């Protein structure tokens, strides 16, 4: 576009080419972060800290330390005392490029070469990890310390997922999140649909005031409501002798917070339905209840779907309401809360964090990709009114 001028606006070869490159750059910047945690979550946990995830398809090189077996493993062979074995033991196979016996010079000797350790003692460490330590006199003391540079082939695994799902409690939090999200998505729909119909198609005093109030409430920051609601919940809990942090409590809270947007979205859609439909039905003797149930509700399916997706994503991704209205025990901690807790307790364990993060975002991503059309429609209806 920068090259183009006059009537050939953006149509020159370089202009076109530039647009492709520019969009590609944007796409790469926007997808790389997510790709990073997806790839990392599938990597071996030792490799995650050994090399950047963008190197995960090439071998990662790291310096390791090991100890050879002690004197009890030695055998006498041709007058020399020899210890043989494999430095990796039962660990994953790696390739050794160099080794050493002092931490200051961990790569002093080439792999496969017999290193002279002094006093006639030699150590040979082969690329595959097998070693031969040979000494003219009986070997004493602790096993010889060995440092080596090894490169491991890329290793991908689902181990991290098994760990977080079953032993880190992410699996349980996943169920908790579903328990919160599904009712909190379904309950407001019915309530909002009736209210939206009344506000769109029924005449009654105070209607304009209610509509204005709903639109005003759209922008009320959630923070405004938290303290009084927390007090209210505590009061109710004390009065009836029940716990104050319950699933019922958070379902109703999410319903309350979602209603203004639901009513607003549904009302503007329902108000746009053709008037003749309602009138002819009314002439046929249908009541408002029947009109709503048989005509308006089926026609409003797209907007109901839009709202459902919105509310689902909103509730699933919410952290604030969940940590205020639910407890932090494993039976109530939702995914976002769990992830937040893990960030504190497992701050450096990237195999846990990346995997947990991916588990928390996978559901929204599936919902998003399969129902993107409705989602976009809802966004447009909610933001560009009449546009």
């Amino acid at each position, binding site marked *: 576009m920068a090259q183009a001028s006059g009537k050939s606006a953006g149509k020159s070869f370089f202009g076109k080419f530039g647009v492709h490159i520019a969009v590609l750059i944007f796409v790469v910047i926007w997808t790389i972060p997510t790709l990073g945690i997806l790839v990392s979550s599938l990597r071996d946990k030792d490799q995650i800290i050994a090399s*950047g995830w963008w190197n995960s398809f090439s071998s990662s090189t790291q310096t390791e330390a090991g100890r050879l077996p002690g004197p009890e493993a030695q055998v006498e062979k041709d007058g020399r005392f020899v210890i043989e074995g494999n430095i990796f033991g039962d660990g994953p196979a790696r390739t050794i490029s160099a080794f050493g016996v002092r931490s200051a010079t961990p790569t002093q000797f080439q792999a496969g070469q017999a290193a002279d350790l002094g006093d006639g003692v030699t150590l040979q460490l082969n690329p595959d990890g097998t070693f031969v330590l040979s000494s003219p006199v009986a070997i004493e003391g602790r096993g010889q310390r060995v440092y080596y540079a090894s490169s491991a082939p890329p290793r991908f695994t689902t181990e991290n997922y098994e760990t977080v799902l079953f032993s880190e409690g992410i699996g349980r939090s996943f169920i908790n999140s579903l328990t919160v999200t599904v009712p909190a998505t379904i309950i407001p729909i019915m309530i909002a649909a009736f*209210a939206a119909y009344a506000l769109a198609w029924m005449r009654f005093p105070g209607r304009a005031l209610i509509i204005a109030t709903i639109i005003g409430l759209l922008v*009320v920051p959630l923070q405004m*409501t938290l303290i009084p609601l927390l007090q209210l919940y505590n009061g109710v809990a004390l009065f009836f002798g029940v716990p104050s942090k319950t699933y019922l409590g958070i379902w109703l809270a999410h319903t309350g917070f979602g209603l203004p947007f639901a009513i607003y979205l549904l009302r503007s859609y329902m108000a*746009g339905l053709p008037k003749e439909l309602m009138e002819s039905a009314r002439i046929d003797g249908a009541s408002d209840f029947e009109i709503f149930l048989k005509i308006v509700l089926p026609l409003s399916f797209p907007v109901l779907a839009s709202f459902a997706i919105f509310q689902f994503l909103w509730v699933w991704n919410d952290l604030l309401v969940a940590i205020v209205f639910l407890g932090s025990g494993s039976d109530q901690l939702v995914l976002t809360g769990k992830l937040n807790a893990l960030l504190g307790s497992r701050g450096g364990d990237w195999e846990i964090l990346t995997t947990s993060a991916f588990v928390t*975002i996978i559901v929204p991503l599936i919902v998003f990709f399969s129902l*993107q059309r409705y989602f976009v429609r809802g966004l447009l209806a909610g933001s560009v009114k009449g546009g």
Partner: protein
Amino acid sequence: MAAQILSAIITIIIGVGGAIAYFWGANRLLDLIFPSRGVSGMAAVDNLRRQGLIRPWLFVGPALLIVTVYLIYPVVQTLYLSFHDRTGENFIGTANYQWAFGDREFRNSIFNNILWLAVVPAACTFLGLVIAVLTDKIWWGTIAKSLIFLPLAISFVGASVIWKFIYEYRGEGQTQIGLLNAIIQGLGGTPQVWISLPFWNNFFLMVILIWIQTGFAMVILSAALRGIPEETIEAAVIDGANPFQVFWKIMIPQIWGTIAVVWTTITILVLKVFDIVLTMTNGQWNSQVLANLMFDWMFRGGGDFGRGATIAIIIMVAVLPIMVWNIRQANKEGGR
């Protein structure tokens, strides 16, 4: 766990069934009390009129009740609490507000919030507009838009983990596993602990929100751009306007209303932003914002509801002009 799933399913059934039962039952009851069929003409007309007076309230009733309990009452109560001490019992006038404006952390939050407000909505709108214009010109634009739109589905906490991984720091000379430090080191620079650099860390946190919200701006603006009549652009091109003139003088003025909507929507979001700061820094290293500070005061030392409420009111005051503007816009269009 099974009990929990079962109780959730039962709740859904009770909730939805209850709603249906209420709406159906209330209607039925209304028809029984004021029958419009099977009574004489005058009475039927009378009863229909009465039905018409009551029925709307049956429909909006549940919504009004919930909205009142969960939104209207709390807003009023928060205002009340902001003039009371930490227990919420003793009236202390404007002491909480005086405390707030004298508090170093609060002033730091205000400063940071202003910074966020200045950068994030502008960056999202600008990038969204640029991407919307560019993707419109190429055949794989829809795919590109989908991918840029994708972060919108990711939670703030999830996004924080994603970006924390990018900002990850290892000592100088070590293998960097954070992308940003790897690039910096690769270019010969010194790796940094990005999120603890005072002042600049704000921008590293903002990047997360911009990454999430640009897709939103892009989708809305892209739809608005499509709505621009072809003729206006063609006419300008024939008159010899260059692409930049077409963009700034023809396209932008026609989508000005949409830009305002996108801008205000993101502005409101920025004022409420909490999760990103909580998970990335929890307000340390001078990165505090109002929403997180408020949350902090709700629970800090057993909780000071008076101060928490005061901060909530201050966030609300910032949103108020947008609220008024919204209602005005809606009224202008007229309730159909």
